[in-house]
């Protein structure tokens, strides 16, 4: 069994696998997203309360979930690289950061756009959006720390540690923001709870989730190849990979 794990750690193998998987991820993502968007916009019934505004859920909820998922993936990859000194973990973590940050931005903007019809303003310090904003600051912190070092290996390790510290703090931040929000606004404000989801609304959401995950896989594979190349420039296999 270990040969599989050991091969996973060898850069040339991963470079090949990442290059091979990218088109598959892209294709499947296109299918899932296509179905999700069409079904979500055209066929799913409008919500009795929010009318068509609820369709924003098909972008906001997957991207919000992905922003958390990608940050956790980055932290786990960083932890593996820091503890077992597998250089590949740093490459995965470095590849994850910008993707996660872009999903966070998407979640933030769609969240505030969704808030407009709900609360009458674009930003009402809703606890979930506030924690999403702080998550964006954490992403920016990790990315700027990684690029602040001339020596890439040290930047990788520092960013890995910061993402581990960050992932430990994300639930604490979320809890304290919810506590703070309930303290000041109380439950009177029409917080938009999850709209009641009957089946026909749920399918597009699940396929959008799948589409987002597959898309993340595709972009991760592309960025991973670049990160592996940046870290393995001297290795002999780079020469063959270049000529192929």
């Amino acid at each position, binding site marked *: 069994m270990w040969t599989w794990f050991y091969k996973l750690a060898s850069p040339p193998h991963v470079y090949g696998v990442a290059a091979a998987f990218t088109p598959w991820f892209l294709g499947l993502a296109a299918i899932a997203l296509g179905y999700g968007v069409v079904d979500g916009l055209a066929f799913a019934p409008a919500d009795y309360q929010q009318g068509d505004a609820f369709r924003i859920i098909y972008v906001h909820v997957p991207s919000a979930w992905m922003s958390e998922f990608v940050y956790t993936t980055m932290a786990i990859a960083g932890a593996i690289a820091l503890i077992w000194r597998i250089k590949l973990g740093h490459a995965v973590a470095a590849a994850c950061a910008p993707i996660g940050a872009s999903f966070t931005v998407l979640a933030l903007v769609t969240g505030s756009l969704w808030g407009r019809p709900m609360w009458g303003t674009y930003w009402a310090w809703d606890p979930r959006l506030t924690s999403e904003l702080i998550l964006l600051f954490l992403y920016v912190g990790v990315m700027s720390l990684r690029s602040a070092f*001339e*020596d890439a*290996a040290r930047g990788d390790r520092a960013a890995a540690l910061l993402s581990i510290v960050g992932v430990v703090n994300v639930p604490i931040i979320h809890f304290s923001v919810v506590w703070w929000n309930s303290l000041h606004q109380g439950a009177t404000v029409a917080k938009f709870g999850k709209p009641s989801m009957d089946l026909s609304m749920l399918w597009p959401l699940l396929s959008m989730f799948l589409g987002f995950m597959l898309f993340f896989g595709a972009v991760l594979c592309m960025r991973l190849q670049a990160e592996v190349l940046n870290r393995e420039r*001297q290795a002999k296999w780079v020469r063959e990979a270049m000529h192929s």
Partner: protein
Amino acid sequence: MKTATQGLCVEEVHVWCGDRHVLKGVSLDLDVGELLHVSGPNGAGKTTLLRVVSGLLRPEQGAVSWFGRSISSVRGEYQAQLAYASHEPALKGDLTALENLRFAVGLKRRVTAAELGSSLERTGVAACADLPARVLSAGQRRRVAMARVLAMRASLWLLDEPFTNLDAAGSDLMTALLLAHVHEGGCALVVAHHDLTLGCTMRRLELAA
């Protein structure tokens, strides 16, 4: 793996700094009572080698062992027995020479002010024991750093360019201290880009650029 049960043993150490392959498979061994002169052009990795041997820098490949035991397993105990004098004499400008010694040596072993005073005397800077380190000249600072190495009573001395900023008397003093240390069974690894005439059997390791 050649296990030298006596003293220091470094095997096939490789270190990369960014893209530069700084140490290419360096190996050396240093028995008790021996002195090794590490020389080489600038950028050959002399200081990096010292940092690896001292346990500050973990090499990507290769191992360093002290009396047969890898230093990563006995890091605290090993570092308590070594004295590392880096290229710059690491002194706090605001603290006096005596205080610098007290705080540095006090972490390794209980030491009295009298003992520290005598170390400063032996390196000829007893007069500036109570002067803040920032007012001392470079030579005096180097002598205070030398006094610190003496006061630590370390078995292994790792000296990075110990002869810089020293006048003739200082160099002779440094040579005498090195000989005394080696004579009593200590071992020393001295980095110097010029050749040393210490008047004792001394092995030499040349690092390529």
